[in-house]
């Protein structure tokens, strides 16, 4: 189905400012980077996690691990969804046990991706806590999941898609709402 861009909600600078604010919020709430780790949900969550990690490091002056999760095998539609791309590797460069993990994703919608990510993390060990940071919360939750850190709330209708585009994959940083025509 052809899609048309309905609105551009965030541009590159808006995204950058939101990420800077989230970086500060993560540090404030967790009182620093002790025991902290970020895990981005592939693919664009990974990009955002990398950027957040860089910001946190430069604000706090301390290093901490950033990894990436591929949740393909944990999705509740794993056996039935046809996808264009093959699953990627999960890369968790730290011991999950006792860690305070902030999951990072681009859009929070039904909450199913976050649930899948939590299930996957738990297969690796017992974290101290898991928090969720998203660039966009578009509502329409189907699971009792909430984001601890939100870049922007974008109310949307079911017929729309909210797309986060990042330079690394899409040549541009922006958030757009797209309608199925």
């Amino acid at each position, binding site marked *: 189905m052809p899609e048309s861009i309905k609105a551009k909600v965030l541009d590159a600078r808006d995204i950058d400012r939101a990420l800077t604010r989230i970086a500060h919020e993560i540090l404030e709430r967790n009182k620093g980077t002790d025991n902290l780790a970020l895990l981005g949900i592939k693919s664009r969550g990974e990009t955002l996690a990398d950027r957040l990690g860089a910001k946190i490091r430069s604000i706090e002056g301390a290093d901490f691990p950033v990894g990436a999760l*591929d949740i*393909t*095998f*944990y999705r509740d539609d*794993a*056996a*039935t*969804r*046809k*996808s*264009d791309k*093959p*699953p*990627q*590797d*999960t890369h968790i460069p730290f011991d999950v046990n006792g860690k305070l993990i902030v999951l990072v994703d681009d859009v929070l919608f039904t909450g199913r991706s976050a649930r899948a990510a939590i*299930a*996957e993390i738990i*297969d*690796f060990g017992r974290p101290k806590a898991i928090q969720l940071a998203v660039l966009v919360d578009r509502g329409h939750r189907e699971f009792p999941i909430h984001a601890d850190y939100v870049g922007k709330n974008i109310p949307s209708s079911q017929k729309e898609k909210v797309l986060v585009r990042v330079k690394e994959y899409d040549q541009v940083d922006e958030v757009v709402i797209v309608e199925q025509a």
Partner: protein
Amino acid sequence: MAWNRKHLLTLEELSADEITLILDTANSFKEVSERSVKKVPALRGRTVVLFFHEPSTRTRSSFELAAKRLSADILTIQTASSSLVKGETLIDTLKTLEAMTVDALVVRHSSSGVPALLASVSKASIINAGDGFHEHPSQGLLDLFTIRERKGKIEGLTVTIVGDITHSRVARSNIYGLIKMGAKVRLCAPTTLIPSGIEKWGVEVTHDLTKALTGADVVNVLRLQLERQQKNLFPTIREYSMLFGVTTERLKVAQKDVMVMHPGPMNRGVEISSGVADGPASVIDEQVTNGVAVRMAILFLMMGDKSVSQ
């Protein structure tokens, strides 16, 4: 691209894109097998039947582990103790299993064409785990995966397959797969163990091991099936080994970074020396590891269509 086939019967019918999709998917499954919890819930609740009519260690364990690591349920049919012994037909056996709602059957049989026969009437997905002399697609795929992983590519490589080509389903699947992915294939066997006219498949044929190994990037050594000696297809094991056995000395003419593969089980000292099998060029153990990942990819891609089990 997405996977669209209901059955996996041959490498002959797969496109290069489909092969690449399986290899790419297998990559992530390799990582799963390295975790301490080697399980993902992707195929939870699905049922896979292992239907092995011929003995097998590697392939059967590999498919069994692959299914279990995807959280699927396994049912193993030991055909020697099944009603096939009482004369029940293959198709009736299939219908019985389908009536218990299974999602996929992994089939190995001593007769070529059995998986295709079952596929023609089957509601469940049929995966060929080796049929007669015909094909062994999952072995071909894991061999391709091993080559791609170690060498970074398959296209343009010179791959020599040595051994009993006539009776080898591993050779056939490898040949189809390698040619499709752009490799140069060389076959080496005594004249009695290679089908005539096989050059028409686009492969080089030689009966001289030195010529076969010269400049090779990859050498795939096939097991000499000792029972063929009874059919006068080779005079003695010693003679076969002297002329066609892959040893460290004979490998000297290959590329310096040549990689040696063997589908197993090996006859040490016959088709392959222990020096080579345990030496730095050998990737035989990696093949087994990769086999589980490739079979996980196959099961995951094949069983990803719900309509299959309805």
